[in-house]
């Protein structure tokens, strides 16, 4: 199976947010791979290997990202996990919106014709949650979002995808080629079944850690460099950021002596009654 995985770099969500004027100051940010994209890489690797050690692979995993040259480090990190090659489309973070990203990915898909596009359900920086859906629409491909399990069926022609929905898990069958966006539970030990890996095989929970051998091998794997104009994608932004501000600091709490006082305060101070 030929799989295209999309990857975005985001600032470490654990870091303190800094503002310069009314814009985010990312000069000292620690960039990392969006966690859901990392799960997509893991899922793609599980779809193409057999779980044995040493693992044999069937298929190929390409990881694509739009971003500045630094993004190579996150792409290398995916290559070190085991992806076969990477594509970087040159772009500045602030010159991208979901439409541009989806249209760029559409071009890559039309060019490379993968059987499956695996994506994180959202990027944990802006929590957009729309690139996967847009891409499926542009391609006219079936889509399954928020995947928590994937099973290859019909001799590799379709996937049974478990989707996290509000009231449980919905199982959906999608023909390939398709776009699948993954949720947190896709990295559970037995969430991905490709029909080749032994049925009782269990991966360690979570995206894998690259081995040092993998890290060294990543150095020699190809990262193809492309540009938006080369791909013929219009760079006109449809979403503009007008400003960023921190949420207001929380007020200190108060201890209240009686229910009576509580009702009084809800009425007079909080004005919710």
């Amino acid at each position, binding site marked *: 199976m030929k799989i295209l995985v999309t990857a975005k770099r985001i600032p470490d969500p*654990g870091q303190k947010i800094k503002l310069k004027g009314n814009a985010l100051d990312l000069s*000292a940010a620690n960039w990392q791979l969006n966690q859901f994209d990392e799960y997509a890489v893991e899922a793609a690797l599980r779809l193409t290997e057999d779980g044995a050690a040493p693992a044999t692979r069937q298929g190929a995993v390409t990881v694509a990202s739009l971003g500045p040259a630094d993004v190579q*480090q996150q792409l*290398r990190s995916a290559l*070190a996990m085991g992806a076969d090659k990477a594509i970087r489309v040159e772009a500045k973070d602030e010159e991208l919106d979901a439409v541009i990203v989806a249209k760029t990915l559409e071009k890559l898909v039309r060019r490379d014709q993968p059987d499956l596009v695996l994506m994180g359900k959202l990027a944990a920086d802006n929590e957009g949650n729309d690139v996967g859906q847009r891409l499926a629409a542009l391609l006219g491909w079936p889509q399954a979002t928020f995947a928590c399990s994937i099973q290859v069926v019909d001799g590799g022609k379709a996937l049974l995808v478990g989707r996290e929905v509000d009231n449980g898990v919905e199982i959906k069958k999608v023909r390939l080629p398709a776009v699948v966006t993954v949720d947190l539970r896709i990295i559970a030990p037995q969430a991905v079944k490709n029909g080749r890996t032994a049925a009782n095989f269990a991966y360690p929970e979570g995206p894998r*850690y690259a*081995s*040092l051998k993998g890290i060294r091998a990543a*150095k020699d794997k190809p990262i193809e460099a492309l540009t938006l104009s080369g791909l013929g994608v219009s760079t006109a932004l449809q979403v503009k950021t007008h400003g960023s501000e921190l949420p207001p600091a929380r007020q200190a709490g108060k201890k209240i002596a009686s229910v009576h006082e509580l009702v009084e305060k809800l009425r007079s101070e909080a004005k919710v009654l």
Partner: protein
Amino acid sequence: MVNPLISDRDVDFLLYEVFDAPALCSLPAFADHGRPTFDLVLQNSRRFAREVLFPTYKAMDAEPPRLENGRIVLHPLWHKIYPQLVALDVIAASRPYAAGGQQLPLLVTTLASTYLMAGNLNAAGLVGLTAGAAHLIEEFGSDALKQDFMARMYRGEWTGTMALTEPQAGSSLADLKTRATPTGEGHYRIKGSKIFISAGDHNLTDNIVHMTLARIDGAPAGIKGISLFAVPTRRWQGSTLVDNDVAVAGMIHKIGWRGGPSLALEFGERDDCHGWLVGEPGRGLSCMFQMMNEARIMVGANGVSTASVAYHQAVLYARERLQGRPPSVKADASRPPVPIIEHADVRRMLLRQKAIVDGGLALLAVTALQRDLAGHSTTQHERHRAGLLLDLLTPITKTFPAERGFEANALSLQVHGGYGYSSEFLPEAWLRDQKLNSIHEGTTGIQGLDLLGRKAVADGGAALSILTEEIEQAVQKASAAGVFPAACTRLREAMARIAELTMQLAQKGLAGDVEGMLLHSADYLELLSIVVVSWLWLQQATVATQQLGQDQGDADSYQGKLCAAQYWLATELPRVSHLIDLCRSGEDSYARMQPAWF
């Protein structure tokens, strides 16, 4: 906020701003690598330590291994983390490609390993022991042993131990009694009792290789009669592994490092324990010194890691714990209480920990760098110079993080107040863990004797001269940047006085008064440690000042460095002069004190 274990910012600062790790890639041995690779290596260690190892620490501390039917059963979590640890390839990270390693600089792998140690020291310790044991075979073993033992150990299929200590031979290995009888069939029959052998038995892998010191029958008494053997728990019989007569005689009930077993082992109870000679007969201890020196640096790394994880915990706690009000508004109870980090004395305790932890991390980095240079520099002169400096630094890198780390760990507990004294909070566990570091791999007392009796005086004090040169360079850079001028002067003067003191003590020794020469070896170790760490703080402060001047990077972290440097140089460096006086004076209270007077 979660505990970062080790600060990424501090590690990056050391690797890329102070010691220029990528510059090592100009050496042929490291030509394959570059910063992108280093960053991935670090990223892996960081995440694995935080996500996998650290969450297992408390459970493993609470439930030590059990001895059942003569074998050790480990906490079930070991079976989850060990295979993952092996899959990272960390065991042979710094060994050459030819030996199955990744040929990474020790500067990088050592700092990367601190995350693992801070996350779960028992797990990291097993990797370190296995790597050190396999390295002995790589360096001194026959090809057959390399194939049979070393390769499997580097792959993590088998683990390794160092089996030196015996009940009557702890600090004094010259007194060890384990015997090796030649069989004429290529191996020896081993018989003897060892004690405190870490990872001496477990149920993680099929086999364990004990690097064992023993005397070949007829060998002379003392050091020259000691040889090194590889003694597996199971040996090959055809293609199956059979019992090799290494029995667990008992398990030590430890106050720290409780997740892993330290054992009394009985070799050859049934006269059926086969061992294979590694290196030449009679050279056992000098071979073993390779592993011991590596292990001593590993102990230092552990000391820093154990102090670091506790320090970060204390900072997190101090930011959240509300108690009291600033002195200026103390009487006003209507004012809300403040987080305790607002109190100057709490910040004193935190800054002291930071000075020790960051100072220790820099010490570790500079020592690892000397190992890389001693092994891989392109000129003989550079290799020799780095080797001498490494020898001098090793007892300091072993001891400073252990002794000062213990102090830092106690301060972390103190910051937690009464909660710190409860086992529901982690600082007490780290304090227990830390104590081992001043004991194993040569006690602090033994390190002091090694530093003053050997390292400082070897080659007419050549290593001290190199250290003096290095310090002089750092002082010049600091002076040029206008950084801490008073400390610069002090450091220069201290080095001059240390050279003089060392000469005086060496002469005492040469004149036959070895006892008098070594009387204050503990003070000597302490004063040289303070000087070395001051040197490293001066370097860090210089870089931080330059970066701040150019408005580079994370200003908060540089300001923090400058405060910690100032604290260390103001509170510790002045003590050196007093300690030198003490050593010079030959103050003789404990020399005169008779056993009966206690």
